[in-house]
Structure formats: structure tokens, C-alpha cells
């Protein structure tokens, strides 16, 4: 089991190095795109900044508190994206039939799909997320102690799992629709954009949906309450880890899709 895992990591590393080398053939384009990615998510931050120049608080959250929320969500998303955005190109693989090649190889399909194309330029967004995270954490005014640091780490793990699960669902649905569903962007990119504010500002119903259906609130709202000392019940520290369960139904849907895959293309 362990040996298999080590082997998988080595293969993934190999895929990664191939992709980096191919991206480096176009150096200027690479750096410009990375810079662009860096700037794009900066817009959202500026949006928050200017809104709070005018308003002092929303739903009881101040600027620095919203900033912490935004920066954590952004890092959760960027980590998942670095790792799992390869699923974005999956519709293309299904349509052209190149998924057949993947199936006949004696390796895990997910690993191969993820390795097939690795958008290395996303490094710009990742860099921006790290900078934002550092800024958000240092300006949050939170009194950091061990449980709070653990909470943030759990939030990152849980959030990464939720977003990866969503990317996986996006890919799995392609087995049935043969094309990428634009609507899924609302759940991934939309969650990144609108996840900048704590879920509670979208009302009770939204809070329920994001607690039980797609567990954004578990990696954002509830642990945030603990971090900001709005709610000091210690179980909130571990709530983000519950979100990891979201990977199970996503994976099940993927397996179901693979089993029902009918080759298309030529």
C-alpha cells in the first residue's frame, strides 16, 4: 500500500516535471500569464477594500475579519486548483476519446487525468493567495494560539478537499453530458468569489445548504466564528475536517461515471 503510494507520488512528480519543462519553452508568455493570474484575484481584494472604505461592518464582521475569511478561502481554493484543476480539461479528453488511452494503462485514472495537463501558470494565483493569506492573518488582529493555528490548518485541509471534490464532480458529470457544465463554475469559481464574505450574510437558507449539501460553511463560517472568538465551543476547531467526507460522494460519482463510460470520438 505504502509502496504503491510512493510510486504514485513519483509518477505525479514526473508528470509535473514534464509539464514544467514544456511551459518553460515559452518563458515570456509564462511569466506574463502568471503575472496576469496574480492581478486577477487582486481585483476581488480591491473590491473588499473599497467596500469597507465606505462601510464599517457587514453582518457584524469588520474589514480585517472579512479579509481573514477571504484569504483563507482563496488559499483553500488555490491549493485545490494547483492540484486538481487538471479536471478542467477532462471534457476535452472525453470528447476526443483520449480517455480510452488512460483506461488501458495500468495506472490510476485520476492520477493520469491530473497529470495530463498541469496549468503551471496558476502559480501566479497561488502566489497571490499566499501573499493574501499572510496579509489576512497578520492584519486579522486574532490572538494566535495553538488551537487557533490548528483551526486554520484544518480549514485549509477541509477547504482543499471540498474544492477538489467539486472539480472531481465537474469531471464526472462529463461522462454523462460529454461537455463541461458551465453551471459548475458557480460552485467553484463562484464559491471563491462570493466566499470572500462569511456565508451568514447570504441568509439562513444559504447557510443550511452550505452546511449540509455542499459544505462550504464547514470550512469557512463555523471555524471563523471560533477564530474570531464569536463562539468559543471547542468542537468548532474540528468542524472543517468533517468537510473531507465530501470527497466520498464525489469519488463515488466518478467511479460510477467511469463504469458507465462509453467511448466517443475516434
Amino acid at each position, binding site marked *: 500500500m505504502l509502496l504503491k503510494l510512493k510510486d504514485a507520488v513519483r509518477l505525479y512528480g514526473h508528470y509535473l516535471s514534464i509539464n514544467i519543462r514544456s511551459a518553460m519553452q515559452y518563458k515570456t508568455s509564462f511569466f*506574463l500569464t502568471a503575472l*496576469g*493570474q496574480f*492581478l486577477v484575484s487582486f*481585483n476581488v481584494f480591491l473590491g473588499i477594500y*473599497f467596500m469597507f472604505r*465606505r462601510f464599517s461592518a457587514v*453582518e457584524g464582521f469588520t474589514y480585517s475579519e472579512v479579509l481573514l475569511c477571504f484569504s483563507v478561502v482563496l488559499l483553500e481554493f488555490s491549493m485545490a486548483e494547483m492540484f486538481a484543476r487538471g479536471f478542467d480539461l477532462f471534457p476535452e479528453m472525453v470528447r476526443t476519446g483520449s480517455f480510452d488511452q488512460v483506461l488501458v494503462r495500468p495506472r490510476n485514472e485520476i492520477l493520469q487525468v491530473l497529470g495530463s495537463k498541469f496549468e503551471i501558470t496558476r502559480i501566479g494565483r497561488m502566489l497571490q493567495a499566499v501573499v493574501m493569506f499572510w496579509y489576512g492573518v497578520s492584519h486579522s488582529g486574532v490572538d494566535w494560539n495553538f488551537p487557533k493555528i490548528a483551526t486554520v490548518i484544518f480549514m485549509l485541509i477541509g477547504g482543499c478537499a471540498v474544492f477538489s471534490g467539486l472539480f472531481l464532480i465537474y469531471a464526472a458529470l462529463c461522462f454523462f453530458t460529454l461537455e463541461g457544465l*458551465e453551471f459548475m463554475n458557480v460552485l467553484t469559481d463562484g464559491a471563491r468569489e462570493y466566499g470572500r464574505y462569511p456565508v451568514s450574510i447570504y441568509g439562513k437558507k444559504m447557510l443550511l445548504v452550505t452546511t449540509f449539501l455542499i459544505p462550504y460553511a464547514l470550512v469557512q463560517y463555523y471555524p471563523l466564528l471560533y477564530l474570531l472568538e464569536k463562539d468559543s465551543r471547542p468542537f468548532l476547531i474540528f468542524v472543517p475536517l468533517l468537510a473531507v467526507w465530501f470527497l466520498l460522494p464525489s469519488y463515488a460519482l466518478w467511479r460510477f461515471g467511469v463504469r458507465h463510460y462509453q467511448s466517443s470520438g475516434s
Partner: protein
Amino acid sequence: MKKYLSFFRLRFTMGLQYRTAALAGMVTQFAWGFLEIMVFQAFYQAQAEAFPMTMSATASYVWMQQAFLALFATWMMENDIFDTIVSGNISYSLCRPVRIYNMWFSQSTATRVARAVLRCFPILIVAAFLPEPYRIAKPASAWHFGLFLITLILGLLVTVAFSMLIYVFTFFTVSPQGVRIVFTSMVDFFAGAIIPLPFFPADWQRVLELLPFASMQNVPLRIYSGSMSGAEMKKAVVLQLVWLVVLVTFGSWLGRMAEKKVTIQGG
């Protein structure tokens, strides 16, 4: 002129073919519209006195923005055009007795109009029947509505004229990626696509309203929702015309330069 009108017609009918894509896009835009209004609503409830527009004007702004997204979104560019430059197929167009600038101008206008025509009506109709605070308001007056339509067209032309600059720059840089992302994220922000311009601090707003970006979606959307005074509207329309002339003149001059020096890529 006639040949460019037929380029427009061709692209327009082509754009109308993508109905499934339009439907999927509409569903997405509804979701974005709702979330956007929820955010503004939360700020409104927190501090109504700091709100620069009325809540109903903000809702109208958001729905109009979603309905006409295809007219103003700079990130929706013609990938065909980039492809012809990068692949070298541009040589065919250069052989034709047309001005590349004018041809692309009419084509991208047509694509945007076709996309918007497919999407705007369902969005606007549904938005008109939503409960408060989500409902889109009626235009302030018939006069406002007329002016809205005129500035909508002017705004579209300014947007296209601006995106033409990006196409022309691609002649010099070959890879469109970088220039494109930097430009589009800048436009998005300064045009009021992230937050409407009235939400910026007053000194920022004064400067931003003079820039070409403010002549895009900002003017028609705010005239519709009635959040501009008479003098402001007059100034905004004049600015739109000025920027349109400046951008088109600069763009077509740059285009001619590029045509002279063009390197055909590929083989």
C-alpha cells in the same frame, strides 16, 4: 461600408447558433446576479446611510449588468482573431481588399450583440417578476430609457474599440495571453464590473469617471437605474463620444502600423 455590414450580418447569424451555450450561461448569470444582490443587501442592512445608490437602483444595475454581460465583458474576446494572428492565417485576410481593423471591429461587435440578444430577454423578464429587493425596477422615465439605449450602444462601441487595441497589440507580442489578462482585469475593475463606480471613495470616483473604462457599462447601467443627474448624464455621453473617437483613431493607426510590419507566423 457595405462589406463590413455583411461581416456584421454573417457573425451575427453565426452567434445566434449557440443557443445551448446561451442557456447554460444564463443559468450561471442568474446565480451570480442573486449572490451579488445578496452581498449588497447585506451591506445595505448594515449601514443604509452609507449606501451611495438606492437598493432598487443597485438591483437594477446588477440585473442589467448580467443581462448585457456579453456586450461589456472584456474577457469575452474573439479567440478566432488571436488564432489567425498566432497561426499565420492572417495572411489570407491581408490579401483581401478590406481594412483588418474595420473587419474585426464589425465582427466582434456582431458576436457581442448576438450573445446579448440571446441572453438578455429571459434574464430581464424573470428579474422583473422577482420579489423585492431582487426585482429590477422600471426605468426612471421614457426619456431615461431612450438615453439608456443610446449609451448602451456607445458603451458597446467603446468596449469593442478598447478590445481592438488588445488584438492589435497581439501583432507585436504574438502570444496574447499576458497582455490579455492584464488588460481585462484592469478594465473589469475600473469599469465598475466588480463594484459599481459610486461605491468607490469620492476622490477615486472623480478620476475614474474620466477614464475610458467608465464610458463602457457604467454609463448605460447607471442611467437606467436613475442614479445620475442631468448634468452628469450630459457629461458622460460627451465623454463616451470623445473616448470612442480617440480609441478608434489610435487603434486603426496602430493597426495600419502593424499591417506594415506584420510577421506571418507558422507555415
